[in-house]
């Protein structure tokens, strides 16, 4: 089975690869559309700026390849910025368009005296879809995951929400699922054993 980690020049791919490896799966770093087409499952990681990421994906032809991959029904996992890229558009800089696999917007976490970015561990709470049958199965309600972000996803359809997180009184969607696409705002590969459980569930379902 070929698992692709999409490289678009942003983010720590090493730890994603290590997480897969620790569970007995060999994932390959992929940066061109042809290699992506040969893959059975895909992880879209990423840390950094939405606009820079979309620009890279547009230039390399990976945007079309990602859309094609999602339409094929094969397993697609987005992480952090990789979750945000799935949505319609971001208000970061000038309303940059995303992949639009999910309807909704990327917005900045309101400051209101909060430290932004959120850097650190926070809890995930059941919301929307049941966790059973998703990659969150066997994860404890209220489990801690590791987050690093200034922006959050606001899905238009409440039915895609898998869990929510509250940061200093501000509640937002921290994971989504729609058909073969699942994505988390937090970094499961940096969230100790509960994070590895998420990877294990997803890899087994591929």
């Amino acid at each position, binding site marked *: 089975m070929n698992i692709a980690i999409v490289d678009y020049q*942003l983010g*720590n791919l*090493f*730890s994603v690869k*290590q*997480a897969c*490896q*620790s569970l007995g799966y060999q994932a390959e770093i992929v940066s061109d559309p042809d290699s992506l087409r040969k893959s059975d499952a895909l992880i879209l990681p990423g*840390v*950094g*700026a939405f606009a820079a990421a979309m620009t890279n994906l547009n230039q390399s032809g990976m945007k079309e390849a990602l859309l094609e991959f999602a339409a094929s029904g094969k397993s697609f996992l987005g992480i952090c910025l990789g979750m945000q890229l799935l949505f319609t558009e971001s208000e970061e800089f000038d309303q940059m368009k995303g992949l639009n696999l999910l309807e909704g917007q990327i917005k900045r976490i309101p*400051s209101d005296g909060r*430290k*932004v*970015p*959120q*850097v*650190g*561990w*926070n809890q995930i709470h059941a919301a929307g879809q049941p966790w059973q049958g998703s990659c969150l199965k066997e994860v404890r309600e209220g489990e*801690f995951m*590791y987050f*690093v*972000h200034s922006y959050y996803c606001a899905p238009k359809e409440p039915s895609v929400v898998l869990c929510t997180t509250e*940061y*200093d009184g501000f509640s937002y969607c921290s994971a989504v699922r729609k058909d073969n696409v699942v994505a988390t705002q937090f970094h499961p*590969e*940096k*969230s*100790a*054993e509960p*994070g*590895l459980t998420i990877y294990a569930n997803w890899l087994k379902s591929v």
Partner: protein
Amino acid sequence: MGNVRVIARLDIKGPNLVKGIHLEGLRVLGKPEEFAKYYYENGADELFYQDVVASLYERNSLQDIVTRTARQSFIPLTVGGGIRTLDDIRETLRAGADKVAINTQAIKTPSFIQEAARKFGSSTIVVALEVIRTGGKFLCYTDCGREHTGVDALQWAARVEELGAGEILLTSVDREGTGTGFDLELIREVSRLVNIPVIAHGGMGNGQHAVEVVHAGASALAAASVFHYDHLQRAHRQQGAHEGEGNVEFLKSGRGFGAIQPANIPEIKSALYSAGIPCRFTSTSSR
């Protein structure tokens, strides 16, 4: 307030974990990967590696240790020491680090912070301040507290945020390794001044110190001696002498701890939790 992070700091010299007082007088304690694994399993929220000689001898010796650690510890890892160029950052991240900490080069060339934040994202760039009280002021030093810069820590902290740093690691060199508690005035002043997270470091000797520093405004706390001595004591009780594994004679005798009361990560978290301070607790950290 977000959940307070408890960070295990490991000072590294060559292949060894070392620990000193005021960042000097280093003793070898053992293998960094082995301590890191223990802290990971004990519920550390992050790991912080500092190459304590990289700045002095102009070398980066940490990459292999970083890679071995990243293979077994699935929590964030920050690496500092000898980071001078964008290539150094790229190499350190490629080796498996999630963030880098920069001190000397940031003070030499402040625009380096900006370039690094633009290239790798602010959340990847931690700026480290090593502070010594001098003539009623907080002044920054480089090269593990050896080189005087004359830079005012409060002004520098504000500037570092403007330049795009994601976090500040704030070390009181005066308190480092003493176990007499954090420099609360320093932490309070800097935390009040900046909106980015401040990681307090230097002086933690017990759980009460952790509670005090959070009340002073720290978003996270980093400690070394408290955790290292605890780990060595436990390992020593379990297996008897650690033959050939570092300079542990002083540990067997119990001398050399000063005001430090060895404690593990769950004990520090439980002190925070009892004081009503939110932090991450795990099933493995409740032992």
